[in-house]
């Protein structure tokens, strides 16, 4: 009972955080802000995937969260490198 309430609370927190980041991606003052908001969206989505795995009571989703963490890191660094140097691999 307490567990399901806490799970719903955590779902709501990370969902609201995801919406705030989406707002920030659309109305970003500078370009690095947009990368930062996208990176935070990746972190929030990882938390949501792990929470969904706990709610469904299965370990299937942890591999998805791990792969999402890796692709999120690589894409954030590639985007930052691209606007830093105009090229990703020099």
């Amino acid at each position, binding site marked *: 009972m*307490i*567990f399901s*309430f*806490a*799970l719903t*609370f*955590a*779902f*709501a*927190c*990370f969902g*609201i*955080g*995801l919406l*705030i*980041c989406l*707002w*920030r991606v659309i109305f970003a003052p*500078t*370009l*690095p*802000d947009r*990368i*930062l*908001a996208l*990176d*935070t969206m990746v*972190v*929030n989505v*990882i*938390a949501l995937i*792990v*929470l969904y*795995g*706990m709610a469904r*009571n299965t*370990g299937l989703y*942890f*591999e998805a*969260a*791990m792969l999402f*963490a*890796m692709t999120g*890191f690589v894409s*954030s*660094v590639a985007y*930052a*490198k691209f*606007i*830093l140097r105009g090229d990703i691999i020099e």
Partner: protein
Amino acid sequence: MSLIAELLIAGLLVIGGLFGLVGSYGLVKLPDLMTRLHAPTKASTLGVGGVLLAAMAHALTQGGLSWHELLITLFLFLTAPITCNFIAKSWLARHANPADLPPTGSDRQWATLDLSEEPAAPNLTPPAKPGRPS
């Protein structure tokens, strides 16, 4: 699952959710990019760490300890500072006013703003230790 384990998992979930929400809210609340970098890279990473600890405890109560969650936590804690450093460098290169930056302590400019091709000479003299009269 016993009451103590349920309370522990619920507490970790609530703390993790609050930290995640604070990290995302700091993204719109804080004034400029260098302060805004702190919110997601510290608070959100800690929030996800709390959720992953809760997932580990949950898997332990269902029988069978799993180490996948610890891997994700370790990966996030390793990669968040690297991403933060790259975003800060791109902000320095595009939007920072060079007159506002603190001095580098050498005769060269900040590395992201210095466009010369030659490598910088290493500064081999150690900096003076503060507060230790000799």
